[in-house]
């Protein structure tokens, strides 16, 4: 029996952190100010207080306290609040990888999709962003309006994962 638990997490502050020019300079300022590098495509960086997850070439999903960032961006980018439109859904248990293969097209079972990795994909016709927290948990960022539909889909699929 493959196990996975599906739970909705409370709201968190989420931002789109976008760089429109001088990316190297911003990256340098960022690393100096924050103590870690801007994460590469498909990965995340930071801590629970402030995590940046890279899903797009010029945009990072930022979760946590963003107050330090406008000055880092200066006039090379912008920060935009987006958290209202996103539900955080935690998939925990050893079965999360297999669950993500249901109705999916992305290789969540790949060993290369390791802790700290991120991917944006389509599952059951809905654009979902994934972040591997540990071998036993994966966080999914789901569009608010589709949350009900996806939760239902996952709950049904979880009944027959084997």
């Amino acid at each position, binding site marked *: 029996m493959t196990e996975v638990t599906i739970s909705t997490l409370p709201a968190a502050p989420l931002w789109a952190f976008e760089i*429109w020019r001088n990316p190297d300079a911003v990256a340098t300022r960022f690393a100096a100010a924050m103590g870690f590098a801007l994460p590469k495509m498909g990965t995340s960086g930071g801590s629970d207080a402030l995590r940046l997850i890279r899903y797009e070439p010029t945009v990072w999903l930022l979760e946590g306290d963003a107050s330090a960032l406008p000055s880092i961006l200066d006039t090379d980018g912008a920060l*935009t609040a987006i958290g209202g439109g996103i539900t955080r859904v935690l998939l925990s248990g050893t079965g999360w990888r297999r669950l993500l293969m249901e*109705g999916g097209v992305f290789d969540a079972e790949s060993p290369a999709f390791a802790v700290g990795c991120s991917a944006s994909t389509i599952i059951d016709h809905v654009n979902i962003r994934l972040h591997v927290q540990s071998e036993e948990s994966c966080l999914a960022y789901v569009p608010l309006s589709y949350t009900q539909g996806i939760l239902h*889909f996952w709950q049904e699929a979880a009944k027959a994962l*084997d």
Partner: protein
Amino acid sequence: MTGPSRPNTDQDSSFIFDGMRYPARKGDTLAAALLANGIGLVGRSFKYHRPRGIMTAGVEEPNALVTVGEGGRTEPNTRATDVFVYDGLVARSQNRWPNLSLDFGAIFGLAGPVFSAGFYYKTFFGSAKRWMFYEHFIRKAAGLGNAPRDADPDRFSQRAAFCDVLVVGAGPAGIEAALEASEAGKRVILVEQDEIIGASLIRDPQEQDSAWVSESADRIRAAGGRILTRTTASGYWEHDLVTLTQRLAEPGQIPANGVAQRLWHVRAGQVILATGSSERPMAFPHNDRPGVMLSQAVRTYVRRFGVCPGQRVVIATNNDDAYLTAHALREAGAQIVAILDARPAPAGQANGFTTFNNAHPLSTKGSRHCLKSVSGLVDGVSKSWDADLLAVSGGFTPVVHLHCQAGGSLEWNDAAQAFVPAQSRQNVKTIGGAATPAAIFTSAPVVPAKKSFVDFQNDVTLADVDLAWAEGYRSVEHLKRYTTLGMATDQGKTSNMGALARLAEKQGVAIPEAGLTTFRPPYTPVTMGLFAGAAAKDAGAHKRRLALYDVHAAKKPIWQPLGYWFRPRAYPMTGENLAEAAMREARSVRTAVGMTDVSTLAKFEVSGPDAVTLLETVCATSVGKLAIGRGRYTFMLREDGFVFDDGTVWRIDENRYLLTSSTGGADRMATHLSYVRNYLHPELSVSVVNVQEHHAGIAIAGPRAKSVLAKLIGEEPPRHMSTVATKIADVAVLILAASYSGERAFEIYVDARNATPVWGACETAVVAEGGCLYGLEAMEFLRIEKGHLVVGAEIDGRMTPHDLALDKMLNKAGGFIGSAGLTRPALSEAGRRQLVGLEAVEGSIPEGSMLVTADGKSPEGHVSASAFRILEGGSIALGQLADGFLRHGEELIATSPTRGQRARVRVVAPHFYDSAGERYRD
């Protein structure tokens, strides 16, 4: 057909066929169990309703089709050779009336000489209605089983998988390939359509035995490989994507965990096809009688299922393989009456069998249920033998379907008289019997063409092939389509080579020059529910739920779909219908105040020093002079110059703008903005973020909206087309003073997760001012009366800014998308449809009706939206009318023949309410 040929002792389940209960043994296919119970007649053919039995032991079976299961799990046209018996299985024969033994449809067989290939094309002339009369009976006679009438109670799953190596077919070659790859550290999937792997080793024991099979399976799994049985690789698509169909329950069986089947989308690094070959029948008159079986199938029934399908057996062959069948039958106690070997000389296989060389079967005799005798030609002399089973082997056809679906080519193997896989542009290779079929001997036996079946299920005979040739249907595709050859549920697995040989013979060319039809997915038929997957329940379209769904649901509104969204259409009070509720709500907005949920509007935050440049590229209006805290109406053109969306643009900070546009066009606008920003103008310093779902939106409108707002925010509300960031119920909100209704109005935007308390505060304040909630229906009344446009109604993708009277707002500086398209001459010619208002002179104006000058005239326009004057009453509408701007005052008819409604209307300006816009001013 003889009776049961194996002991009853190990029979552990039972099944029902045509109402009778029979015992079965674990591991039996339905075909094996039927044979074991002495049942020879299983089905009726498609066209002539000829009695048919079991011909094969695999998925290529053309004859033994039955309906399995009950209620919503009923699966018609199930091959008895491809369903494993479970306790309680219910099967019914099909395409017969009143029953299998006595089928009145067999009359079609008697009239066979008339029902030749292409028969339908040559008769039933007269009117289309007359054809429909005949067609009614033809349709009733056609078809095979009956579809279930009930909904499917089970679920179907779709799952993705990725692997380095996908091996299709778990015979000895496939198992070995999978073992090797998995132990080399590769991610491996091995699929087998049978219930067990290595089944051919039971039929034909080799050095590798069942112990080797199970040990290999263990090693594959231990190395991380996945073995999927009851799984068929049914489609090979682009870039090595293979679809697998896995049965988690047998046809008609209740699945253990609710899922009947799973569709796998496997992306493979490499695909290895070890799909083997299928045996060919031979063409001779009455070769379709129950009791005529393929040789390897006979051997499978004997060795794997312990069923001996006959006691007195004639074998007809053109190769060595059939001698293995003779041995298997002899071991099982059957008598080999004769072996008819097409080859001219003894093949060294005789082993005491009565073998005739240069011998061919010529015909069979028997009853509906069984075979009684076989006649043949030996060195040109006819002979006859009493027999209850004729096992035939006409050679072997490699299963090349997947290779061909992958875009691979074939080459001709002359010894085997078969096509084998050659090159492929995908990463696929074929191994085992599918790559190297056994050699056969072919001659051109002279047999009568009539009743010599090549396509058993569709009743296509050599005579039909000959007729198609004579009538000019000479390409293999014409032949197929004219005769229906290879188009039955077996897709020609047993028939194509026989027909192709005949076609080549007619053309006087070698078989490879005659051509070959295309192999298309699926390899074997796939349950529709499986393709739909979980999406079957919602058509693949999740309902999109408002952030404030719970708040609305508690009020039990009438919901209205809008794309995938569902929004309240009206909030009826007890006893009110939709129209009454909507009119009450609209009146409340006109006379007091109302509030509504506008969350679904498309919204984009555009920031950065180049925000204006981007916005003035996308919007056809000017944006640059907008002061901070101000907003204005805007619209957007396609590149061809037609209006495709509209909305508002707000400057909320020095370098930050909010752009709104229509709900229905939200995805299109998101793509358009992204295209302009990233593809056309990557150099811009600008960020475009889709915040459609981030903000919930609440609109408050009406003469008392301002005082409601003042109470809510404790300060002077922004004036019309101004914006302010403030708080309501201690939650940060952005207020845009914009009006869709024609009244003084405000849109309040709030982080969707914090929307409920804001809504609550607003509702309290609105109700306190004597207002109420309003839904989409009232909103529609309000905007029509005001003359505001809607994307999908007035903005229908065919109207220019001028047609919509928006041209005065066009950005004089140009440079916006669509400015080039606008210059095309037809966009400013006379006769264009233009936006007008319509007021009823008599009757009520039907929405969607046509505008004509008199009954019987062709339409000159149509009604895009209709409503009633909210306070005064009277039917009004917006419409599009040819040269409408010049026709104010003219009377027309708005007619709806499909609804039997019409109204006399007067053309007026498209503003029925406060055309001066005075109600916006404080």
